[in-house]
């Protein structure tokens, strides 16, 4: 299976490991992540205002490129996924945004949200399946108690993201089960890590990350996994638990040769 793939700015720089492990793990599962040619940064935050057009354009360019090459687009970074998925929804549902974006971009075929946007986790769950993942595991993480940290952007607003139950998600726990680990459920797994406010007020993010890690540790977690480079940063800088990209644990369980993968 070959699928279009949008890595995003941080996966080319600070979060290379999230990207590389994701690609290698996908290979083991028989999927080639085909990087979109000439993709641009998604902007990192979804433009909530309905009269913001320019900040939606890079997402639409990626979405159109995917539409013209198979119709599906896989994302990996939580923030990219959030932005691109919601902009796609705007192009489906908001006539004003759709008209202005198409007037500006003037594509040969106007875009109206035809692309299907899938997060890597959804690719695993819906296209590959947990059983197929489990069958390919050669080094199960037996006995490892791991907390899935969702943060905000993957799940909310659930009416638009439609990935999972926003208050009681299961997708990352099912991944952990598939690779042989024991998922730890803790109440703060879908609470905010402090996000971009860490730029201006790092002490605020520190208090959030500490609360999240303490909660996970109290529930028995020995480590956390995340899909978001900013969550990874905030948790790693300030928390008390080891933090991993979820693709790293997946790649290790699938027997990817981790030597030479730049961390």
């Amino acid at each position, binding site marked *: 299976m070959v699928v279009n793939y949008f890595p*995003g*700015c*941080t996966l080319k*720089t*600070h*979060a290379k490991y999230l990207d590389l492990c994701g690609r290698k793990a996908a290979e083991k599962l028989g999927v080639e992540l085909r990087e979109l040619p000439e993709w641009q*940064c998604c*902007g*990192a*935050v*979804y*433009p*909530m*205002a*309905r*009269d*913001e057009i320019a*900040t939606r354009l890079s997402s639409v360019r990626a979405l159109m490129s995917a539409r013209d090459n198979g119709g599906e687009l896989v994302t990996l*970074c939580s*923030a990219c996924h959030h932005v691109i998925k919601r902009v796609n929804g705007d192009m489906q549902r908001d006539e004003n945004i759709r008209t202005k974006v198409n007037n500006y971009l003037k594509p040969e075929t106007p875009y109206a949200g035809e692309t299907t946007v899938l997060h890597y986790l959804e690719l695993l769950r819906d296209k590959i399946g947990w059983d197929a993942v489990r069958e390919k595991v050669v080094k199960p993480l037996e006995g490892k108690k791991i907390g899935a940290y969702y*943060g*905000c*952007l993957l*799940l*909310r*607003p*659930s009416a638009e993201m439609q990935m999972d139950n*926003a*208050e009681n998600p299961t997708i990352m726990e099912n991944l952990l089960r598939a690779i042989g680990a024991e998922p730890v459920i803790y109440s703060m797994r879908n*609470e*905010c890590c*402090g*996000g*971009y*406010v*860490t*730029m*201006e*007020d790092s002490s*605020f993010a520190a208090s*959030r990350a500490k609360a999240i890690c303490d909660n996970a540790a109290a529930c028995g977690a020995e480590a956390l996994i995340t899909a*978001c*480079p*900013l969550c*990874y*940063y905030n948790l*790693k*800088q300030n928390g008390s638990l080891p933090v991993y990209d979820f693709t790293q644990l997946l790649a290790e369980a699938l027997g990817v040769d981790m030597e030479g993968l730049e961390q």
Partner: protein
Amino acid sequence: MKQENLIDAVRDSSGVNPRKCMKCGKCTATCPAFEAMEYHPHQFVDMVERGKIEQLMQSKGIWNCLSCFACVERCPRNVKPAQLIEAVRLAVIRQQGMNHLKPEQIPELLNPDLPQQAITSAFRKYRK
């Protein structure tokens, strides 16, 4: 901008009708930054409804909203307080010379591990 134009701008760009709010306070109860917002989310919605946009534009709390969408997800009336906060923030930074974050401030805020995503996000939220 004139007061009535400001009210229209915030309501139009947010797409939110603050009159749907039944003042249950769930947004404030769930907000991870509520202590850092001098007008808590439910009060913020109420102040938009009362047209106190300039007062909100002066408040420091608008820069502390994390856009985590907890209030949006959990509001039983689908009011979307985060979108009102974003609209007020935009009403500030869309004015000439009113950016909250300037490029020359960036070097001192950087550390070697900070992901690009944080810088891009902050720029998108804090300046035009």
